[in-house]
């Protein structure tokens, strides 16, 4: 079992930091302090953090903050960022309007 899965591990209490109000996720406007607190609330994986705080769930889909959030979570857990599984990649990879997402091209158009 790796350290991230070992939920019995004590990571200590949340200690406020001087840069907790630093904005990390630019789209959803989530701060470093919120991310650190979430870890102490039991959100230890990138997927859990995403669902809990919506970091990386905005328009840019984590393009800018993904690596930053990972670094913060890893530090809080006392593991290397490489040990943290990145959040799930799924369709659509880029922001897209729902009416386009639902607008399947006619087969005839795709076939030249």
């Amino acid at each position, binding site marked *: 079992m790796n350290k991230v899965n070992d939920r019995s591990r004590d990571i200590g209490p949340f200690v406020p930091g001087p840069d907790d109000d630093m*904005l990390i996720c*630019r*789209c959803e*406007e989530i701060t470093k302090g919120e991310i650190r607190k979430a870890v102490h609330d039991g959100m230890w994986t990138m997927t859990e953090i995403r669902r809990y705080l919506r970091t990386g769930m*905005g*328009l*840019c889909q984590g*393009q*800018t903050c993904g690596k930053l959030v990972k670094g913060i979570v890893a530090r809080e857990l006392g593991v290397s960022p490489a040990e943290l599984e990145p959040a799930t990649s799924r369709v659509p990879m880029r*922001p897209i309007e729902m009416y386009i997402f639902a607008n399947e091209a006619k087969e005839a158009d795709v076939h030249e």
Partner: protein
Amino acid sequence: MDTRIAVHPILGETTKGREISFTFDGKEMTGYEGEPIAAALKAAGVMIHRYTKKEHKPRGIFCAIGRCTDCVMVVDGVPNVRTCITPLKEGMDVRTQYGVSAEPFDKQ
């Protein structure tokens, strides 16, 4: 402020489409057809593209290649348009985006 590069030492003369007019928050402006809306705004000295939904903080161009979505504005009534990769067209109505609206927060 002269922000257009007329002649570049390596790339030579900057070639652009025809000069056209558009509006920014109702104000008449000119730019070149086909260049990104953000480039025309930058050349006109506009830095603020939107104010964020939660904290109402200003944002502008950040990545300029359509990834970060910080430069989104309300264009022809459609919010969240990435101005750094959307070509400028004659008569476009470009507006500062407040949250996801073109209406300032005190009017929302």
